[in-house]
Protein backbone atom coordinates (compact mmCIF):
# COMPACT_ATOMS: atom_id res chain seq x y z
CA UNK A 1 0.00 0.00 0.00
CA UNK A 2 2.94 2.31 0.69
CA UNK A 3 4.24 1.66 -2.81
CA UNK A 4 0.84 2.54 -4.27
CA UNK A 5 0.71 5.70 -2.13
CA UNK A 6 4.08 6.71 -3.58
CA UNK A 7 2.97 5.96 -7.14
CA UNK A 8 -0.29 7.90 -6.69
CA UNK A 9 1.64 10.94 -5.45
CA UNK A 10 3.81 10.70 -8.55
CA UNK A 11 0.53 10.88 -10.53
CA UNK A 12 -0.83 14.01 -8.84
CA UNK A 13 -2.93 12.48 -6.06
CA UNK A 14 -2.27 13.43 -2.42
CA UNK A 15 -2.33 10.53 0.03
CA UNK A 16 -2.13 9.81 3.72
CA UNK A 17 -1.34 6.33 5.05
CA UNK A 18 -2.10 4.73 8.42
CA UNK A 19 0.57 2.22 9.44
CA UNK A 20 0.86 -0.05 12.48
CA UNK A 21 4.23 -1.59 11.50
CA UNK A 22 6.78 1.15 12.24
CA UNK A 23 9.89 -0.47 10.77
CA UNK A 24 8.09 -1.24 7.51
CA UNK A 25 6.65 2.29 7.25
CA UNK A 26 10.14 3.70 7.78
CA UNK A 27 11.53 1.42 5.07
CA UNK A 28 8.82 2.04 2.44
CA UNK A 29 8.55 5.81 3.09
CA UNK A 30 4.95 6.57 2.11
CA UNK A 31 4.74 10.31 1.35
CA UNK A 32 2.51 11.08 4.37
CA UNK A 33 2.17 8.41 7.03
CA UNK A 34 0.90 8.24 10.56
CA UNK A 35 2.10 5.47 12.84
CA UNK A 36 -0.16 3.96 15.44
CA UNK A 37 1.26 1.37 17.85
CA UNK A 38 -1.71 -0.96 17.55
CA UNK A 39 -1.83 -4.66 16.66
CA UNK A 40 -2.17 -5.74 13.03
CA UNK A 41 -5.75 -5.67 11.85
CA UNK A 42 -6.59 -2.52 13.85
CA UNK A 43 -5.29 0.47 11.87
CA UNK A 44 -8.42 2.46 12.76
CA UNK A 45 -8.72 1.22 16.32
CA UNK A 46 -10.90 -1.07 18.38
CA UNK A 47 -14.25 -2.51 17.27
CA UNK A 48 -17.34 -0.45 18.09
CA UNK A 49 -15.22 2.34 19.66
CA UNK A 50 -16.68 5.03 17.44
CA UNK A 51 -15.03 7.93 19.27
CA UNK A 52 -11.56 6.35 19.07
CA UNK A 53 -12.02 5.55 15.37
CA UNK A 54 -13.20 9.10 14.60
CA UNK A 55 -10.35 10.60 16.59
CA UNK A 56 -7.72 8.50 14.77
CA UNK A 57 -9.25 9.44 11.42
CA UNK A 58 -9.39 13.17 12.27
CA UNK A 59 -5.71 13.13 13.33
CA UNK A 60 -4.72 11.17 10.23
CA UNK A 61 -6.64 13.31 7.76
CA UNK A 62 -5.45 16.55 9.38
CA UNK A 63 -1.91 15.38 8.59
CA UNK A 64 -2.75 15.77 4.88
CA UNK A 65 -2.55 19.52 5.45
CA UNK A 66 0.30 19.69 7.96
CA UNK A 67 2.79 17.13 6.58
CA UNK A 68 5.85 18.49 4.83
CA UNK A 69 7.95 16.81 2.11
CA UNK A 70 9.81 14.58 1.84
CA UNK A 71 8.12 11.51 3.36
CA UNK A 72 6.72 12.91 6.59
CA UNK A 73 5.88 10.47 9.42
CA UNK A 74 3.74 11.39 12.41
CA UNK A 75 3.45 9.14 15.46
CA UNK A 76 -0.01 9.25 17.02
CA UNK A 77 0.05 8.92 20.79
CA UNK A 78 -2.85 6.49 21.28
CA UNK A 79 -2.00 3.46 23.38
CA UNK A 80 -3.54 0.03 22.86
CA UNK A 81 -3.85 -0.42 26.61
CA UNK A 82 -2.52 -3.95 26.85
CA UNK A 83 0.58 -5.80 25.56
CA UNK A 84 0.35 -7.45 22.15
CA UNK A 85 2.64 -9.59 20.00
CA UNK A 86 2.88 -10.73 16.42
CA UNK A 87 3.53 -14.31 15.37
CA UNK A 88 3.98 -14.55 11.57
CA UNK A 89 1.64 -17.07 9.99
CA UNK A 90 -0.53 -17.36 13.08
CA UNK A 91 -3.52 -15.68 11.44
CA UNK A 92 -3.28 -18.03 8.45
CA UNK A 93 -3.28 -20.99 10.82
CA UNK A 94 -6.24 -19.49 12.58
CA UNK A 95 -8.16 -19.36 9.31
CA UNK A 96 -7.00 -22.78 8.17
CA UNK A 97 -5.75 -21.57 4.79
CA UNK A 98 -2.92 -23.12 2.82
CA UNK A 99 -0.87 -21.35 0.19
CA UNK A 100 -1.58 -22.22 -3.42
Amino acid at each position, binding site marked *: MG*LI*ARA*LEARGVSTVYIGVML*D*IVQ*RIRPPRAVFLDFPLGHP*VGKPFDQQLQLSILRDT*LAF*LETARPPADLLTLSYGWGEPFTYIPGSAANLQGHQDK
Partner: protein
Amino acid sequence: MAPIEYIPLMHAYYQKLGFDDYPIYEPKGDPWTAVRKPLAKSTLSLVCSAGLSRKDQVPYDPRVKDDLSIREIPAETRPEDLIINYSYFDHRDADVDINCVFPLQRLKELENEGFIGRLSPVAYAMGVGRWRDPSTPERLQTEVADDLAGRLRRHAVDAVLMIPT
Protein backbone atom coordinates in the same frame (compact mmCIF):
# COMPACT_ATOMS: atom_id res chain seq x y z
CA MET B 1 7.02 -0.79 25.32
CA ALA B 2 8.97 -0.25 22.07
CA PRO B 3 7.10 -0.92 18.82
CA ILE B 4 7.41 -4.47 17.47
CA GLU B 5 10.17 -4.94 14.87
CA TYR B 6 8.28 -6.77 12.14
CA ILE B 7 11.02 -7.10 9.52
CA PRO B 8 13.24 -9.55 11.50
CA LEU B 9 10.16 -11.60 12.44
CA MET B 10 9.15 -11.87 8.81
CA HIS B 11 12.65 -12.76 7.65
CA ALA B 12 12.76 -15.54 10.26
CA TYR B 13 9.34 -16.81 9.21
CA TYR B 14 10.26 -16.86 5.51
CA GLN B 15 13.50 -18.71 6.27
CA LYS B 16 11.59 -21.27 8.30
CA LEU B 17 9.38 -21.86 5.25
CA GLY B 18 12.50 -22.37 3.13
CA PHE B 19 12.37 -19.07 1.23
CA ASP B 20 14.85 -16.22 1.04
CA ASP B 21 14.33 -13.16 3.23
CA TYR B 22 10.92 -11.50 3.23
CA PRO B 23 11.13 -9.21 0.19
CA ILE B 24 10.91 -5.55 1.15
CA TYR B 25 11.09 -3.07 -1.65
CA GLU B 26 13.71 -0.34 -1.38
CA PRO B 27 12.08 2.83 -2.63
CA LYS B 28 13.88 5.44 -4.67
CA GLY B 29 13.11 9.15 -4.34
CA ASP B 30 10.23 10.75 -2.48
CA PRO B 31 7.26 11.63 -4.70
CA TRP B 32 4.94 14.31 -3.33
CA THR B 33 1.75 16.01 -4.46
CA ALA B 34 0.95 19.09 -2.42
CA VAL B 35 -2.60 19.38 -1.08
CA ARG B 36 -4.37 21.99 -3.19
CA LYS B 37 -7.39 22.75 -1.04
CA PRO B 38 -8.47 22.48 2.57
CA LEU B 39 -9.79 19.13 3.72
CA ALA B 40 -13.21 20.67 4.36
CA LYS B 41 -13.45 21.40 0.62
CA SER B 42 -11.75 18.23 -0.64
CA THR B 43 -13.13 15.01 -2.05
CA LEU B 44 -11.64 12.07 -0.17
CA SER B 45 -11.51 8.42 -1.16
CA LEU B 46 -10.39 5.30 0.67
CA VAL B 47 -8.10 2.50 -0.52
CA CYS B 48 -7.58 -0.54 1.69
CA SER B 49 -5.49 -3.66 1.06
CA ALA B 50 -7.26 -5.97 3.52
CA GLY B 51 -8.42 -8.21 0.67
CA LEU B 52 -12.06 -7.45 1.29
CA SER B 53 -14.95 -7.55 -1.16
CA ARG B 54 -18.67 -7.01 -1.34
CA LYS B 55 -20.51 -10.26 -0.94
CA ASP B 56 -21.86 -9.97 -4.51
CA GLN B 57 -18.33 -9.62 -5.96
CA VAL B 58 -15.70 -12.23 -6.82
CA PRO B 59 -13.83 -12.68 -3.50
CA TYR B 60 -10.06 -12.46 -3.12
CA ASP B 61 -8.45 -15.88 -2.87
CA PRO B 62 -5.95 -15.85 0.03
CA ARG B 63 -4.00 -18.70 -1.60
CA VAL B 64 -3.30 -16.81 -4.82
CA LYS B 65 -0.12 -14.75 -5.24
CA ASP B 66 0.43 -11.58 -7.27
CA ASP B 67 -3.28 -10.69 -7.37
CA LEU B 68 -3.30 -6.99 -8.24
CA SER B 69 -7.02 -6.72 -8.93
CA ILE B 70 -9.14 -3.87 -7.55
CA ARG B 71 -12.70 -4.11 -6.20
CA GLU B 72 -14.80 -0.95 -6.31
CA ILE B 73 -16.86 -0.56 -3.14
CA PRO B 74 -19.69 2.00 -3.32
CA ALA B 75 -19.52 4.34 -0.33
CA GLU B 76 -23.08 3.50 0.71
CA THR B 77 -22.28 -0.23 1.03
CA ARG B 78 -23.58 -1.56 4.34
CA PRO B 79 -20.97 -3.15 6.64
CA GLU B 80 -22.86 -6.45 6.63
CA ASP B 81 -22.46 -6.63 2.83
CA LEU B 82 -18.64 -6.69 3.08
CA ILE B 83 -16.42 -9.65 3.82
CA ILE B 84 -12.68 -9.94 4.47
CA ASN B 85 -11.34 -12.73 2.29
CA TYR B 86 -7.70 -12.66 3.42
CA SER B 87 -6.02 -14.68 6.11
CA TYR B 88 -2.71 -12.86 6.60
CA PHE B 89 -3.79 -10.93 9.66
CA ASP B 90 -6.09 -11.57 12.55
CA HIS B 91 -9.32 -9.89 11.44
CA ARG B 92 -11.67 -11.25 14.05
CA ASP B 93 -12.28 -7.71 15.35
CA ALA B 94 -12.67 -6.32 11.83
CA ASP B 95 -15.15 -9.11 11.05
CA VAL B 96 -17.48 -7.75 13.72
CA ASP B 97 -16.72 -4.06 13.00
CA ILE B 98 -15.30 -3.50 9.53
CA ASN B 99 -14.50 0.11 10.50
CA CYS B 100 -11.36 -1.25 12.21
CA VAL B 101 -9.83 -1.55 8.72
CA PHE B 102 -12.30 -0.02 6.27
CA PRO B 103 -13.93 2.96 8.00
CA LEU B 104 -16.58 3.97 5.45
CA GLN B 105 -19.18 4.68 8.17
CA ARG B 106 -16.77 6.88 10.12
CA LEU B 107 -15.76 8.78 6.97
CA LYS B 108 -19.43 9.37 6.17
CA GLU B 109 -19.81 10.85 9.67
CA LEU B 110 -16.78 13.09 9.07
CA GLU B 111 -18.41 14.22 5.82
CA ASN B 112 -21.69 14.94 7.63
CA GLU B 113 -19.92 17.06 10.24
CA GLY B 114 -18.03 18.98 7.53
CA PHE B 115 -14.55 17.74 8.52
CA ILE B 116 -14.09 16.53 4.95
CA GLY B 117 -15.79 18.21 2.01
CA ARG B 118 -17.10 15.09 0.31
CA LEU B 119 -16.60 11.35 0.54
CA SER B 120 -16.08 9.92 -2.94
CA PRO B 121 -18.99 7.69 -4.02
CA VAL B 122 -16.50 4.86 -4.57
CA ALA B 123 -13.83 3.34 -2.30
CA TYR B 124 -11.34 0.71 -3.41
CA ALA B 125 -10.31 -2.65 -2.02
CA MET B 126 -7.12 -4.39 -3.05
CA GLY B 127 -5.39 -7.61 -2.21
CA VAL B 128 -1.67 -7.28 -2.95
CA GLY B 129 -1.08 -9.73 -0.15
CA ARG B 130 1.59 -12.08 -1.41
CA TRP B 131 4.03 -11.69 -4.21
CA ARG B 132 5.98 -14.34 -6.02
CA ASP B 133 6.67 -12.71 -9.36
CA PRO B 134 9.62 -10.28 -9.12
CA SER B 135 7.84 -7.91 -11.53
CA THR B 136 4.91 -7.40 -9.14
CA PRO B 137 6.21 -4.32 -7.24
CA GLU B 138 6.98 -2.63 -10.55
CA ARG B 139 3.55 -3.48 -12.01
CA LEU B 140 1.93 -2.18 -8.85
CA GLN B 141 3.67 1.15 -9.29
CA THR B 142 2.99 1.47 -13.03
CA GLU B 143 -0.06 -0.23 -14.54
CA VAL B 144 -1.99 -0.65 -11.28
CA ALA B 145 -1.22 2.91 -10.12
CA ASP B 146 -2.24 4.26 -13.56
CA ASP B 147 -5.52 2.34 -13.34
CA LEU B 148 -6.25 3.49 -9.79
CA ALA B 149 -5.28 7.11 -10.51
CA GLY B 150 -7.67 7.06 -13.49
CA ARG B 151 -10.52 5.75 -11.36
CA LEU B 152 -9.85 8.41 -8.71
CA ARG B 153 -9.76 11.16 -11.34
CA ARG B 154 -13.18 10.12 -12.66
CA HIS B 155 -14.63 10.98 -9.26
CA ALA B 156 -12.56 14.19 -8.92
CA VAL B 157 -10.80 12.81 -5.83
CA ASP B 158 -8.35 15.24 -4.23
CA ALA B 159 -6.88 13.02 -1.54
CA VAL B 160 -6.83 9.36 -0.58
CA LEU B 161 -6.69 7.61 2.78
CA MET B 162 -4.51 4.52 2.33
CA ILE B 163 -5.02 1.71 4.81
CA PRO B 164 -2.72 -1.32 4.63
CA THR B 165 -3.31 -4.33 6.82
